[in-house]
């Protein structure tokens, strides 16, 4: 029996007239790496952003740890969660962005310590110790006191991963983490993610790195036009795609 951490039921999202997600059904098991592949505009980033409520669903629901996100049931009717409840549920979900989004006015160490200090109100001593461990883990111990502007893209993204891990999340979301990087810097970020997967972290990765999906992924999801077109074990989907749309896409990128 699999231990389910996140489940999506008929998730829809439209921006005005534009329907981006038309009914996504997906189950993510604890400790697994799910890679989401698909052409631009297929809705894969939007779906990822829905999971930690950077976008509000317009249909369906998502459960994380068995609890629906963003909503609560009161007196038999459905209500929106308030800001505190939403913020609290985000604490357990780490997110890494395509454009890193480090805080430029804080040093690397301050970036990592900010949320544990101010959101979880932990002691500075404990947080600093953990931050230094995380920096060592992503291979950037010597950069603790520099500002992000002095780092390469790959280094910034590794700091961003450390920053997300500092909140000790149960689930990590990666939104095209290597798409903004120079080709020679992609490897160092993927290495960190690979180590993270080996350590048992549950990860949902929107990516174009098919090699990474094949090697590290436990589950590969192919999205197109707002639907999940096909999913399965990466090696099977990549070597023997069943759906015509998947075949077309893979023939172009492989």
């Amino acid at each position, binding site marked *: 029996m699999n231990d389910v951490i996140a489940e999506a039921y008929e998730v829809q999202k439209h921006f005005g007239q534009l329907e981006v997600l038309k009914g996504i059904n997906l189950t993510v098991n604890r400790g697994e790496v799910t890679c989401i592949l698909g052409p631009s505009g297929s809705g894969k980033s939007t779906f990822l952003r829905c999971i*930690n409520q*950077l976008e509000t669903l317009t249909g369906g629901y998502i459960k994380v740890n068995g609890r629906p996100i963003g909503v609560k049931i009161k007196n038999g009717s459905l209500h929106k969660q308030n*800001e*505190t409840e939403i*913020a*609290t549920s*985000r*604490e357990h*979900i*780490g*997110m890494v*962005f395509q*454009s890193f*989004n*480090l*805080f*430029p*006015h*804080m*040093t690397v160490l301050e970036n990592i310590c*900010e*949320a544990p200090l*101010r*959101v*979880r109100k932990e002691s500075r001593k404990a947080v600093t110790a953990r931050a230094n461990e995380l920096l060592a883990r992503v291979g950037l111990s010597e950069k603790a006191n520099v*500002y*992000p*502007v002095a780092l390469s893209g790959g280094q910034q993204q590794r700091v*961003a991963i450390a*920053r*997300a891990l500092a*909140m000790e999340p149960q689930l990590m979301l990666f939104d095209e983490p290597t798409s903004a990087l120079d080709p020679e810097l992609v490897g160092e970020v993927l290495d960190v993610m690979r180590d993270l997967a080996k350590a048992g972290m549950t990860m949902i990765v929107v990516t174009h790195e098919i090699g990474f999906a094949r090697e590290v992924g436990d589950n590969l999801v192919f999205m197109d036009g707002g639907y999940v077109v096909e999913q399965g074990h990466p090696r099977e989907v990549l070597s023997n795609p069943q759906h015509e749309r998947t075949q077309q896409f893979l023939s172009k990128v492989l």
Partner: protein
Amino acid sequence: MTSVSKTPESTGQPVDAKHHELLMTRPRESHRMMWLTAAVVLGAVALVAYSLITNPRYEWDVVFSWFLSERLFSGLVNTLILTVISMVVGIVAGVLLALARLAPNYVVASVAAFMIWFFRGVPVFVQLLFWGFIAAIYPRIEMGIPFGPEFFSIDANTLITPFLAAILGLGLNEGAYMSEIVRAGLLSVHKGQTEAAKALGMKRGLILWRVVLPQAMKIIIPPTGNQTISMLKTTSLVSVLAFPELLYSAQMVYSSNFKTIPLLIAASLWYLAVTSILSLGQFYIERHFNRGSGNRAPQKLSARFNPLKRSQPIVQKVQP
């Protein structure tokens, strides 16, 4: 002499191997035009200086005897108090108005936009007069529940002193300008910053205070410095409310001793002195908020000043 066909784009003269050594040196720079211009400008400056020194109507001895007088000094203190309090009121009002304008609630945003339109649109001098004459509109100011019991009532002229009228007039006008400056600063912060903070579980207030505002400061500080300097001088309008700030103090002196020009000069020297100090302060504040950004303000103040010839341009062009 050989004739060389000149292509249109080439203006240089043909050279051969014997020029090699010469070409490896650097061309001589001529400073002749620069010296000439400097001489002309210095000549003009000398004329003005000559007139300043020799024209007896400046009465420099009177200027300096009043410059450090107690009456002007207490006027200066009042001017500084007005400037500081009005700027604090202006900045607080500006942040609130900017947040209101960016609020998702349409009614709140519209009312904020209307207030900004009003307080920016009416000249600050007129606004000061309105606050000064507030008793003509509301003779008594009452506090209580509308259409219900009244808790207290006070004569408007007692409550709104010239000082309070000045603070209200200057502060609210300033708030309207500051709100646009703050709004520009808030909008300059990339959306990804807010998203990253949200994803870490931070709430709106914390995001604003720790992530957005510190980055917006880089945009907000330089115009705020200008506004403060401008406010220092705008406080002189308060003389119309008979509040003894620097200008009004000078006016009171010259209305009795008729040394009009020397006293105006003495007041001006004080305005210049404080403006200079404020500019210096602005430099250090800008440097503080520029940390972590690629284009730093010069690390040393002296780097900005270099007589006759600048060794480096003040504004460095960004190389593409």
